[in-house]
């Protein structure tokens, strides 16, 4: 009994390492995505003014780690820590988005955290996951809108961007993240984490 309460809110060493490893992994994935989009897609659509909108189609990748990890570990602070670390490692790797990625990562982590905190880290279902993805979209979008001078842009153009980003976030960081985590739980890898707890023990031998 004491053991399970202990696991609930305190970070153990292995949790810290796992959170950091997930951050490292997705920093690499984000870095690779940004660079392939910037080199392969952006130059083609730039002459139409759509160069900077191209990244919106895969924007959900940036929220992935901040939504995926709290779903598995289900304790306070995971979204913020993993989200921020993902950004920090990206900037250390020399991402093309540079320092914008760091402040955005913090805002995204906090947005996801707010949603999970609203449910007291007890309820993790489709609704929470999708809501967290939307929260990240809104958080990151408001920041980018204000910081990137989109206030000056055509409202229809900005609205289109928002919709693309939201759909991408729902698909990638909402649905795909939950799918992947559930599959990991079924594979029995998450035995020592809240999400995988019900898959403890041996499968039925029939």
């Amino acid at each position: 009994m004491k053991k399970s309460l202990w696991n609930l809110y305190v970070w153990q060493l292995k949790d810290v390492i796992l959170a950091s490893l997930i951050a490292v992994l997705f920093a690499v994935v984000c870095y690779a995505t940004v660079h392939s989009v910037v080199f392969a897609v952006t130059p083609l659509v730039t002459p139409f003014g759509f160069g900077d909108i191209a990244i919106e189609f895969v924007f959900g990748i940036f929220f992935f780690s901040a939504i995926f990890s709290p779903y598995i570990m289900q304790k306070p602070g995971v979204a913020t820590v993993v989200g921020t670390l993902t950004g920090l490692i990206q900037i250390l790797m020399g991402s093309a988005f540079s320092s914008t990625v760091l402040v955005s990562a913090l805002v995204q982590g906090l947005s996801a955290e707010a949603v999970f905190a609203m449910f007291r880290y007890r309820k993790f279902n489709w609704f929470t996951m999708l809501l967290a993805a939307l929260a990240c979209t809104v958080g990151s979008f408001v920041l980018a809108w204000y910081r990137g001078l989109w206030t000056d842009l055509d409202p229809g153009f900005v609205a289109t961007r928002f919709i693309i980003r939201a759909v991408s976030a729902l698909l990638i960081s909402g649905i795909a993240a939950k799918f992947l985590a559930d599959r990991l739980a079924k594979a029995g890898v998450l035995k020592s984490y809240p999400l995988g707890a019900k898959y403890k023990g041996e499968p039925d031998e029939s």
Partner: protein
Amino acid sequence: MNLDARGLTFKYFENARQPVIEDFSISIESGKITLLVGKSGCGKSTLGYILAGLYPENCGYLTEGGVYFGGVNLSTFTPDKRAACVSMMFQNPDLQFCMNHLENELHFCLENIGVPEPERPPRIKTAVNTLGISHLLLRSFNSLSGGEKQKCALCCILVIGAKCIILDEAFANIDKESAREIIGHIKTLGFTVLAIDHNVALWEGNVDRTVSMDGTYPKTFDFRPTLHDTGAEVLSVRNLQVNGIRYPDMVFPKGSITAIVGKSGSGKTTFFRTIIKQCKYQGEIHFFGRELSRWRSKHVFAKCGIVFQNPSNQFLALNAFDEVLFSVNRWHTGKDKATKEKKTMELLSVFDLERYKKYSPYLLSQGQQRRLAVLTMIAGEQELLLLDEPTYGQDYENIVAIMELLLEKARQGLTVIFATHNETLADLCAHQTIRIGD
């Protein structure tokens, strides 16, 4: 001081039906080397972790019994005090260090046990000089070989001042010379040792006592298959050079079994990667009648299967049955479902894995994972099979089972190349042994 375990009963899950270890006692005498043997999966590693005080603190439940160091229960120690009594050397040398190089790692160890910063350098110097590895202090761990990493691990234990070391298959993945050197150091430094090792020969002459966990003792290797004749050449290599490594000329006839031996880091894995077109090479590789560079990767993969060192990277399904079925499906597209499922069960039974058909591949032991990976490759109609350390972490029975399967397949025409550290195995089961990196 002796390390005693009295009446241990341990399970991984609160509601597990069968405990992993039941009412087991062992006494490890001060200053002696004790070797722990027993079949794969009988709980040797688990016992090692309990003796080091790492379980049940970090995983599982000790329902009865306790571990005593010099008469004091280990569970009353804090991790820093405990590390000064018992420490552990692990199987995978890549996953033991949290710092970038040895000097920082040693600082970390000393910080753990509360040594103030100014007192650390002399202790570090003494430890590295004792093991003769001062040249490794500032080299990045990523650039070290497996053997060098294990020497660093021993150095950490030395600097902490632990009296007792538990080795959990610590030499499974490193060459014999490095392993012998480390054993020599352990012996002269007078550590109290519990060694868990499938490869008993490595410890010959240094062991004071052998204890079996389940009453079985490893047999001396007497598997002597009669080797069949081989066919025409399917693969040959001449003047090969990859990333600055020069390879001897080799010829692989159809149906032959070839063992590749050499120190860790001598280029065994690189050779396999080259054959499946993952490395640029100079020289000639004649692959099924044509130069390798003129093959497309996709067609190479259809001819040639490979089992990697980390088998969990190649699993696709959520249970062992589906895992093998996937490969069966890929190669027997025309057949009906029942035939394919029967074939899958037949394959699983070859390695006694039918019991685990509903288990997730990731929940199997390392040895079982490796055997499952071999099955997924055997299921196909590939003509060439590459295996990187297929017998790593396997006990005698399983090594024999794997080699018998490979021999049977080779008789039917499969060409097998495997890399290994086990030279006895290479001598007995292979048509030819090729030594690289000399």
